[in-house]
């Protein structure tokens, strides 16, 4: 009789204990959804052989400042000059790096276009003339994740008055092939 009583009490305690444990937890589910899309990114980097970018190196909005340039005077390091009978051209190496993610694209096409018309000076990027009229293709087979040098050059007529500020923006567009 005593054993039966003890067993009964033990069983009751077990039931109470398990009930208490069950009641002190709560569960929930959070269903998470996302759609991954491939993307590419273009950044400008200073090229070791050219002018250091004045600002924005490592971003997609950089500034290249040639400073004072002339047909025959001294130039800052990193600037290359050539002259003709009527013009001089200054250029600097500029690196463009395009990264890709979540894409099987093998390479990219890079195009450039001047932000505003320049009726006096001639601009080129990577040896390709660029204007504001239309995009110019700099390469159709750009390699990802590597710095590619596309020198920026400005050809200035000798007739340009000394002290003239020349400024423009060049818009680059990289498209995954």
């Amino acid at each position: 009789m005593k054993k039966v009583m003890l067993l009964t009490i033990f069983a009751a305690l077990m039931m109470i204990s398990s009930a208490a444990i069950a009641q002190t937890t709560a569960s929930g589910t959070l269903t998470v959804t996302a759609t991954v899309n491939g993307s590419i990114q273009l950044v400008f980097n200073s090229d070791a052989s050219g002018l250091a970018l004045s600002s924005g190196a490592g971003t997609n909005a950089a500034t290249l400042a040639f400073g004072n340039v002339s047909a025959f005077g001294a130039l800052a390091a990193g600037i290359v000059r050539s002259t003709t009978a009527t013009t001089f051209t200054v250029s600097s190496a500029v690196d463009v790096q395009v990264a890709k993610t979540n894409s099987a694209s093998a390479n990219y096409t890079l195009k450039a276009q001047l932000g505003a018309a320049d009726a006096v000076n001639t601009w080129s990027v990577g040896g390709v003339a660029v204007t504001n009229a239309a995009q110019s293709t700099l390469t159709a087979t750009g390699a990802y994740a590597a710095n590619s040098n596309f020198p920026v050059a400005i050809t200035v007529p000798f007739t340009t008055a000394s002290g003239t500020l020349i400024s423009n923006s060049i818009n680059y567009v990289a498209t995954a092939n």
Partner: protein
Amino acid sequence: MLKNYISNMRGAVLAALMLCGASLVAQTTATGVINGSLVNKNGISIQFDTDAAGVTLGAAGTSAATANFGAVSAFGPLSGGVTRPSVTAANFTVRTIFDVQVVQGGLTSTTYTLAANLAAAAPTGLSYKVDAVTLTTASQTIQVNGSYNTDIAHNLDLVVSTAAPGAGGPAVGAPITTTINFTATAN
């Protein structure tokens, strides 16, 4: 003889009427007693709430909510409530914030422990973190001293491999869904 018969009949009718009357009177009142009882059991509940800094949850305020990051990429635009804390060559992380509220009743417990696990293995190229704890299918502790009856914000990170699909990266262009199980346990 007839006189006796009539007298008997009258007595019988009278008796019947009295019985009927008593019965009708008895049916106009009734009494009863219900003995009610209840057992007040203690317990806790969990619900997910939208955080002001995160995406709007589906079924917010319940224990079975949804969080949609929308379109995510390493460099492209993101939905409201989604941020991109890091981008490396190997992966990028997108983050949203959600709230967990645990309510308790009948307990002396003052805090709870929150644990989480993936319902199934993470899809290729993706991993999930809650408050920097990388989730697996095994339960892992997220917080050990959660306060009851208040929204507690948690970061939900989705770490995405930058590899191309088929090369270790996730599938692209289609929604990828994963379920995270949460368990709150009273301390």
